[in-house]
């Protein structure tokens, strides 16, 4: 007979994150209400002094969240929040005349065109603590693993989703573009559908 082992009490809080006020677009004030989903606090109030080693949330293969704590090792930051490169930027072309550029090797009648990347509006994106899905996070699916999972990063194919647990479905937002205007689609809808499976395709996972 062995007595039931009682582990040490974990520090928990039932305190709900309180709303806070922020100023957006220079003048507009907004009340932000934080929400907690699957242990992840969305729209949380940022720290007064930004911490470069502030933990961020990544997603496991099945879409469950996990907290990543950046660390400095040998003078370099490891496990830092991912850099999105130009995935969420829009390509723009700036045209400049000779008067503006005044380059010595430019013909005065020519027009100089420069490609620039325009950052997206980060007003609401910045409130999301979870690392965003980019094409770099795509995986291969299918029997021969030769089909790209676009636009999904999570969940990976054939992962297990257990009842009563919360998983995040994540996709690359710029994948959905309007054919005519090439603008990113504003709204999407997520569907879960049954798949008819043959007897030999049925999984027999541990019960």
């Amino acid at each position, binding site marked *: *007979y062995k007595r*039931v*082992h*009682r582990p040490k009490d974990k520090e928990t809080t039932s305190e709900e994150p309180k709303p806070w006020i922020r100023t957006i677009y220079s003048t507009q004030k907004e009340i932000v209400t934080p929400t907690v*989903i*699957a242990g992840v606090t969305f729209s949380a109030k940022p720290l007064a002094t930004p911490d470069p080693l502030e933990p961020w949330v990544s997603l496991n293969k099945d*879409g469950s969240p996990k907290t990543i704590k950046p660390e400095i090792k040998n003078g370099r930051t490891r496990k830092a929040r991912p850099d999105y490169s130009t995935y969420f930027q829009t390509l723009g072309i700036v045209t400049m005349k000779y008067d503006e550029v005044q380059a010595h090797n430019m013909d005065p009648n020519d027009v100089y065109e420069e490609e620039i990347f325009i950052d*997206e509006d980060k007003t*609401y*994106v910045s409130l*999301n603590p*979870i690392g*965003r*899905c980019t094409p770099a996070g795509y995986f291969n*699916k299918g029997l021969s693993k030769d089909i790209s*999972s*676009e*636009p*999904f990063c999570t*969940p*990976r*194919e*054939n*992962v*297990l*989703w*257990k*009842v*009563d*647990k*919360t*998983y*995040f*479905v*994540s*996709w690359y*937002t710029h994948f*959905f573009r*309007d*054919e005519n205007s090439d603008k*990113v*689609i*504003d*709204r*999407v*809808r*997520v*569907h*879960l*559908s*049954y*798949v*008819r*499976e043959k007897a030999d*395709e*049925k*999984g027999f*996972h*541990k*019960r």
Partner: protein
Amino acid sequence: DIKGTFFSSEWLKNVDGMLPVTVDEKWLQGYYERKIIVSVQPENVPDDEFNPLLNGVMVNMLLGSKVAKTTKEEWARQDAGIYDREWYYVALSIPTVVVIAIVAIYFFLQLNGKNRDFSDVTRSALAKKHRVLGPISKMKKFKNMKNHKYSELPISNKSSKQ
């Protein structure tokens, strides 16, 4: 409206790029495990043109294993001041009863030692085990058997010369 679809979210802001999904037991429809496909429908694709299989990800939805441990229930009972000591009483009572019984039997046998006589029982039991068979002619099986009596075989007289 989409065939085979059992859950459709509201229209979401695409800029969020994610949706938390909590798996509901009802979705399994009584099965232990079901294969589902997760798909995203953009606003510019109408329902009748949307095919979830086109850009969907296959996922196995399952009920999950149930842990048979009663640890948490036991903690709750302990917190309420109820301690499960039945095992303790059983563990103590069984050897105690046995010891008392042995002591009682010992004294009972000591007190009744003089009044006890099993000799007839013992004798008859031993007699059954060690009975004398007797001669074969008296045995039931061989009683009526006609057996010739032993008679000596003729022996030729031997002379001293031989």
